[in-house]
């Protein structure tokens, strides 16, 4: 059984078809890339999976259970974590309290206060923000905000991570570090579904790649195979890989 499955997922905003009958299946412990030109529906798909947007048609299943129609918090508690393209921490809380929200209301919530705190601090160490625990989230630099995004998504001990352009705005070296970190998370047993606009570094590590174009899934397979497809090349014609 696939960990995450989409069946005929469609989303219409007025006259705009953001997604059209998208079918996909993601296996456990894989790093899967989701790519496509601007406006192809990548983030819409993440919004639907995480419950923030309801699809017009179709459904999403997680571990075989239909999650479409459930509240975002219920989906989160099943073990789906996500990051946002534009970092969205709790600005007026400390970095530690930010992560504590995820630890407390996620799947580590049964721990006592001291253990939750230890887990949150451990999460901050993992992403290299250990020294910033007491700072307000609004005081972080862009690079630090991206790390906090990742720490927040990991705090609830998810089985599946949705990563929405976490590396955008970072220098090339920073991007590669983050992508290498994805690969390490996969080795620890996580499943990762990652959107990247500048996708080359991601494809080095990805097990599979899905390509969306104007709301349609136009390719799904191993990176080398997909990137050789003329249909994909056509979709990206005129797009620059920055």
């Amino acid at each position, binding site marked *: 059984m696939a960990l995450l499955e989409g069946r005929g997922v469609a989303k219409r905003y007025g006259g705009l078809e953001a997604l059209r009958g998208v079918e996909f299946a993601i296996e456990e412990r894989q790093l899967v890339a989701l790519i496509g030109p601007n406006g192809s529906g990548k983030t819409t798909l993440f919004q639907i999976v*995480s*419950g*923030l947007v309801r699809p017009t048609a179709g459904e999403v299943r997680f571990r075989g259970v239909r999650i479409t129609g459930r*509240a*975002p*918090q219920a989906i*989160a*508690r099943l073990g789906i*974590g*996500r990051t*946002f393209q534009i970092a*969205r*921490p*709790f*600005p*007026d*809380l400390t970095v530690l*309290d930010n992560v*504590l*929200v*995820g630890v*407390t*209301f*996620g799947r580590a*919530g049964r721990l006592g206060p001291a253990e939750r705190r230890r887990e949150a601090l451990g999460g901050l160490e993992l992403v290299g923000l250990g020294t910033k625990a007491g700072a307000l989230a609004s005081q972080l630099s862009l690079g630090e905000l991206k790390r906090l995004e990742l720490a*927040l998504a990991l*705090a*609830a001990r998810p089985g599946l991570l949705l990563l929405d352009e976490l590396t955008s705005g970072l220098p090339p070296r920073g991007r590669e570090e983050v992508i290498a970190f994805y690969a390490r998370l996969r080795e620890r047993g996580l499943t990762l579904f990652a959107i990247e606009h500048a996708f080359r570094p991601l494809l080095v590590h990805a097990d599979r790649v899905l390509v969306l174009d104007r709301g349609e899934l136009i390719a799904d397979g191993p990176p080398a195979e997909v990137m050789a497809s003329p249909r994909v090349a056509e979709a990206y014609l005129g797009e620059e890989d920055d």
Partner: protein
Amino acid sequence: MSRLGVGGLLLAVAFPVLTGFHPYYLYLLGTGYLLASLASAWGLLAYAGQISFGHAAFFGLGAYTTALLALKLGVTPWLGILLAGGAGALGALPIGAAAHRLRGAYLALASLAYAEVLRVLALNWTGLTGGGAGLIGLPALRVGVELELARERAGGYYLSLAVLLVALAVFAGLRRTRVGLAWAAIREREERAQILGVSPTSYKLLAFACSGALTGLVGALYAHSVRFIEPDLVFGRYFSILPLIMATFGGLHTLLGPPAGALVLYLVSEFVFHPLLPRLHQLPYALALIGVVFALPRGLAGLIGRR
């Protein structure tokens, strides 16, 4: 607790003795503590990111609950006050439920309308509430211990002080628990809180219930203190706008800002403006609001750290 806090507490406890049990000063400061509790109740809700323009609804429900229980059923005011807290909590639930769908200004306007509905209901349900004539002859609270301290209005003074301190202690405790963390997360970014597993609806309801309970309790204490209530007074805009201004002036999202703001504004209004400019004695509230908007976004708390 800081030295300032301990000093302030000792001063508050010793105040009746220091003023020679002066009834006017005790009444004034006792009322100040009630308003400080009211501002704290409003601030608790704001801590969870919910802005109310209609706290008079919960205040009035508390006042009418204890008044009707005492006058119609002969219930002792002490029980009446506790039940008034319950009435305030229950009365806050409909607005809490509305917060599931309404945000920001829309929720604030809904709460304003809610208080208006209750005011008009109390005005017209003459058989129960006495209508616009109000209810008179509420029994006074008796702190029946024959202590030297309890003479004159010292009993009411200490009761108001105790309510404020207990409310602040409970609020301080809540802020350290998962409830406080959820409230802060919802306030900062509700959608993100949801993505991390927080259920906004239940925590908002809890915030409304807590705030409504304290507000209802204060309304009941107020009713037994002035011993007369009418719809335009206890359901009126005064008790909706006052806590908003006091809490904002003291410092939103802080523990001690709202009560400090309440005490400063009320005492300045009563001690400075009332004697000098009696017709303009509410001016400090307007000035405080303007000051906060233009110069002090974090209120008094912004001037002296963030607690």
